[in-house]
């Protein structure tokens, strides 16, 4: 089932949580709402669920306007960040809750409910915990029970608020993979909120990047990572090196130096921000003809690649750069702290100077 939100507006007092948000969530996809805290992603999720009401705009579920419908009638499965399991009920009773709350006419028999609950517990691989209480479970187990509980009522969509937020790093990784597999099995339209870009890129079919109540970009993980549309998206999705400069034909002039770039659409003389990821930054000897002068501060050579921290000189004075190179390259250059070098971006992404909505 597809979800569409149109021109959603939401304010809390003077704070604008959502500003004219319009989005489509295609049927059967797993979508990540990604952004820093306070960007409005959780508010949007709660508005879709019916837990929050928008000041203006509409929520369309499966082609029908559900804006006025109570959360109870929307048939959405919601998984809370802290799971919200009923502490006084066993795992079984928690999962059975939604089935037992149905009006008498629609309610299934005790036996059917029991069967359905065990089916779901098997799906989340926790059938053996049915008689435990939530306090006796680990964080990851609680998360899976919360998911089973939400799935029990056969929701049309599944909404997850920071589903891995409260877990430690290792369990997080496991659960991520597990959620992806589960989605591939069930194909239920799902939206999850996260502030962790790695999580969003790894799990989702599609990523919605949000900042300050606005949608910055929507696309597949590959798309948003490869072709970020705004400086915010670029910087939110990974480490960045930033340069300020002026476009001169196919070169970008930074201070006294010029480096190549691939921002063909920019006019000659345009003032721009230029970005490069650490792995897109090469280091060459200070004597090289081309590059931005910098001084090595620290060389970290554990792992396969080496990380070099640098400080800009001359035109880029006071700026901090980070480069990721193959270890052999570092050894070949014989880099040591204090050494003067030049950095050459292999790929520079340019943004107009005034589009700097994001804080960098």
């Amino acid at each position, binding site marked *: 089932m597809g979800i569409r939100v149109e021109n959603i507006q*939401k*304010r*809390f*007092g003077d704070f604008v949580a959502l500003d004219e948000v319009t989005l489509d969530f295609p049927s059967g996809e797993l979508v990540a709402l990604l952004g820093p805290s306070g960007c409005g992603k959780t508010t949007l999720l709660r508005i879709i669920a*019916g*837990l*929050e*009401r*928008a*000041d*203006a*705009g*509409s929520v369309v579920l499966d082609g029908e*306007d559900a*804006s*006025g419908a*109570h*959360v109870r009638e929307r048939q959405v499965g919601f998984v809370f960040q802290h799971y919200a399991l009923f502490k006084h009920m066993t795992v079984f009773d928690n999962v059975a809750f939604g089935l037992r709350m149905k009006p008498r006419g629609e309610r299934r028999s005790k036996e059917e409910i029991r069967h359905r609950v065990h089916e779901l517990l098997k799906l989340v691989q926790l059938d053996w915990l049915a008689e435990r209480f939530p306090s006796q479970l680990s964080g990851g187990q609680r998360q899976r029970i919360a998911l089973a509980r939400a799935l029990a009522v056969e929701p049309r969509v599944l909404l997850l608020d920071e589903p891995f937020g409260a877990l430690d790093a290792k369990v997080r990784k496991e659960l991520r993979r597990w959620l992806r597999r589960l989605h591939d099995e069930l194909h239920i339209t799902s939206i999850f909120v996260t502030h962790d870009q790695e999580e969003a890129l790894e799990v989702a079919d599609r990523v919605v990047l949000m900042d300050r109540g606005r949608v910055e970009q929507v696309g597949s993980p590959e798309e948003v990572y490869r072709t970020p549309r705004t400086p915010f998206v670029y910087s939110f999705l990974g480490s960045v090196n930033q340069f300020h400069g002026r476009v001169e034909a196919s070169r970008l002039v930074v201070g006294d130096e010029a480096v190549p770039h691939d921002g063909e659409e920019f006019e000659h003389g345009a003032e721009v921000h230029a970005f490069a990821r650490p792995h897109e930054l090469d280091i060459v000897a200070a004597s090289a003809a081309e590059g931005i002068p910098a001084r090595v501060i620290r060389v970290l050579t554990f792992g396969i690649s080496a990380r070099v921290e640098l400080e800009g000189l001359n035109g880029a004075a006071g700026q901090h750069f980070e480069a990721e190179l193959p270890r052999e390259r570092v050894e070949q250059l014989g880099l040591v702290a204090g050494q003067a070098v030049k950095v050459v971006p292999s790929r520079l992404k340019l943004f107009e100077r005034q589009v700097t909505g994001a804080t960098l």
Partner: protein
Amino acid sequence: MSDVLAAPGGVLYGTRFERNAATRESAWFKWVAITVALAFFALFLLLPLVTVFVEAFRKGIDTYLTALSEPEAWSAIRLTLLTAAIAVPANLIFGVAAAWCITKFEFPGKQLLITFIDLPFSVSPVIAGLIYVLLFGAQGWLGPWLAEHDIKIIFAVPGIVLATIFVTFPFIARELIPVMQAQGREEEEAAIVLGASGWQTFWHVTLPNIKWGLLYGVILCNARAMGEFGAVSVVSGHIRGQTNTMPLHVEILYNEYNFAAAFAVASLLALLALVTLAIKSWVERKAALRHIG
């Protein structure tokens, strides 16, 4: 467009429960609940309070002032103040000491100690008076010895003070223990590590953290100390002008059918109650603010 309930301009209204679709009840339920609850409140709490003041002034302001200027009324007020002036500091010192050892240290039997401290709350005030009669009364354990040395405790001021201390015993400790528990030990440990002495640590680190809890306990303790009736009634002997506290004086006047005077003295105690409640909610708001900021 779809949202009928949101106030214009996104202004927040109601409690967080009323603002949430999942926790909101229908308007009729809300108002029926409020009406029933407030009716109960008005009948059982507000009405008695109002009655005290109305009855006190029923015969006019002159009768009211005359009743309060009686020498016996004054001696009752003095005795009440004296009792509170001894009982409250005594329980304050105890409360701080008890809270200190209970919250800053681990030792076996701690839970039992807390239960014992709570004990006076669950003992009838009449029994609180009785136990001192059994100890110090004419027929009591120490009675003959006290008579020999001409020391009067029962039917005298010391008995009244002791009974008052007993009934107000847990108040301050009870408020302090949870506050200091929540505070933990780290700040005190940090102070000690930085070279502060035990006393300096208490004065500069602990006290500022617990001052609201302390004040809270003190005003509740004081209200009960000034208003205690049952326990004091047993040990007082009702000697007019000597061993009558304000509540006992109210009783005597009332039993003499001198209602206007009884309510006049009662109105002072009701005023004390109102002041106590006002300080209490002020402290609560203060303390709540500290939690947020």
